[in-house]
């Protein structure tokens, strides 16, 4: 016993160090959790005030189509229908993901299966460059190139969901492509070898084996792209026209949750309905990003590659 005790001191300094390191990482983790929880609490508590303090009915908010915060209708109900923005957000998100999916999967197949060398040398840097471009630059290009293009193509002013979709398509392309590349790279080599060994052509291997095996990863890539599109504010705001009306076509001005948020937050007074209803929009965004997160986790769990 005595001997063991003699050896203890050196051990215990090491153990102290270990404990110290553990404590630091634990504190860091707790801090992050605390920040996330307090943001959640703050946004949701503000957002719910629309319904608790200002007596707006939930139905009026989610299904109403008149957005004139600060004004009331003849019955005295506040005009805070958020349906135009909710529709706008979902439409541009889904459409841009729909456009980006085939392009990014095609690019990923090229980079991993067809010509890895050229892919690494040319496509990879190009995509990394796309990631690095700030969203205000995308918006600016959208305003000066995409909007006039849409105007010449279909008439009208050019502002609207079509322009928003095109800008978002380019913006989420790098996210979806690089994640699709990762997914394809994660397909074990022996899957391909087995396919070739059985006489499968390259196309058959890609289509029947690699893409099938990478499907969960590809879906995750698309959902991540959608999450980015849903939360993008600045670039969309510059090209969508920001008219809080239910869009009757893709080329008439519409609005998204984010565009209305960024446009109005500086002009409202904290604690008023005009301000709280913006927090309600922010709550929708927050909840949707949680949903996107849960969906990607669910996909990951369901379809992890076995073997």
């Amino acid at each position, binding site marked *: 016993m005595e001997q063991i005790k003699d050896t203890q001191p050196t051990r215990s300094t090491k153990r102290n160090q270990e404990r110290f390191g553990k404590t630091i990482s634990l504190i860091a983790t707790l801090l992050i959790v605390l920040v996330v929880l307090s943001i959640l609490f703050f946004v949701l508590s503000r957002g719910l005030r629309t319904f608790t303090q200002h007596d707006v009915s939930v139905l009026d908010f989610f299904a109403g189509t008149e*957005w*004139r*915060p*600060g004004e009331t209708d003849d019955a005295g109900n506040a005009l805070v229908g958020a349906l135009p923005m909710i529709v706008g957000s979902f439409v541009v998100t889904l459409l841009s993901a729909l456009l980006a999916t085939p392009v990014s999967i095609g690019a990923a197949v090229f980079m991993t299966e067809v010509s890895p060398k050229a892919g690494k040398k040319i496509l990879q840097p190009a995509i990394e460059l796309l990631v690095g471009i700030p969203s205000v630059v995308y918006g600016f290009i959208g*305003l*000066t190139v995409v*909007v*006039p293009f849409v*105007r010449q193509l279909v008439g009208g*002013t*050019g*502002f609207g969901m079509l322009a928003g979709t095109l800008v978002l398509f380019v913006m989420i392309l790098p996210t979806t492509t690089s994640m699709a590349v990762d997914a394809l790279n994660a397909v074990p080599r022996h899957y391909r070898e087995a396919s070739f060994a059985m006489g499968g052509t390259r196309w058959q291997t890609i289509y029947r084996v690699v893409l099938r095996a990478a499907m969960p990863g590809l879906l995750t890539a698309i959902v991540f792209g959608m999450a980015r599109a849903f939360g993008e504010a600045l670039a969309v*705001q*510059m090209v969508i*026209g*920001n*008219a*809080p*009306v239910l869009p009757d076509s893709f080329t008439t*001005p519409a609005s998204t949750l984010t565009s209305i948020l*960024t*446009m*109005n*937050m*500086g*002009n*409202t*007074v*904290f*604690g*008023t309905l*005009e301000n709280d209803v913006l927090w309600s929009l922010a709550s929708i965004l927050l909840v949707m990003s949680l949903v996107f997160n849960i969906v990607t986790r669910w996909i990951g769990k369901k379809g992890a590659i076995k073997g």
Partner: protein
Amino acid sequence: MKRMNVLNKMLFLLSGIIFLSACGPVVEEESITAVGSSAMQPLVEAAGEQYSGENFGKFINVQGGGSGTGLSQIAAGAVEIGNSDIFAEEKEEIDASQLKDHLVAVVGITPIVHPDIDVSDVSKEDLAKIFTGEITNWSEVGGQDLEIVVLNRASGSGTRATFESTVFEEGQEAMVTQEQESSGTVRSIVSSTPGTISYIAFPYVDDSVKVLSINGVEPADENVVTDDWFIWSYQHMYTNGEPEGLTKDFIEYVLSEPVQENLIPRLGYIPITQMEVQKDAEGNIIETE
């Protein structure tokens, strides 16, 4: 070697202490924060820089955020100065009684259209009807057969509030249409989209857009000072109660002759001292001379 190092360090520290203590009593650093209207930001920033240059160690932090932010921050006492293009009384939620208003400048606002529009003068009634959506084609006001595209600033923007309160008659309401957040974006969209009409403050006007005169009156500073050009607003600096110390000093500086006569006109605003009329929070005009 080691001793040398320690000695060096001590010398360095000592010289640092001497240097800092030499600075200490001479310059007492002081700063205040002014928050609010983005239309006023360039003005307050330029005045603040000039003030800091003349008064060593005094700093004016200027932030944007919009008139609503400026008013709510000053009402909450979170900042020293709240910048706003509109009267605090116009925002119902703000308790204006505790705020002290300092009018520092005036800015005119003009309707702007795409350069290809054949219209250069419009009546006040027609202008209002364009923005309420009653007039939808340029041919109805003497221009070519082209659909009118109305572009608004965000609801709650000071420029929009001023435009609507001076142009609209009682009961008229803006149509729901495109909105943009900043004057710069409005200008670039108007310059590039055929048929568009919007409005911006004088300092933002350039050759890329065409201004409209109203009832034959041109949008010019000399017409604003007499209220012949009726779309204008004060630039307010609000303080919570009577200003004190640096805040008082800075506001007096902004109202002083060098700033009013040089800086403010250079930035495109109209000095408050030149105004021949006054406007109250309800929009009533009073002749002063």
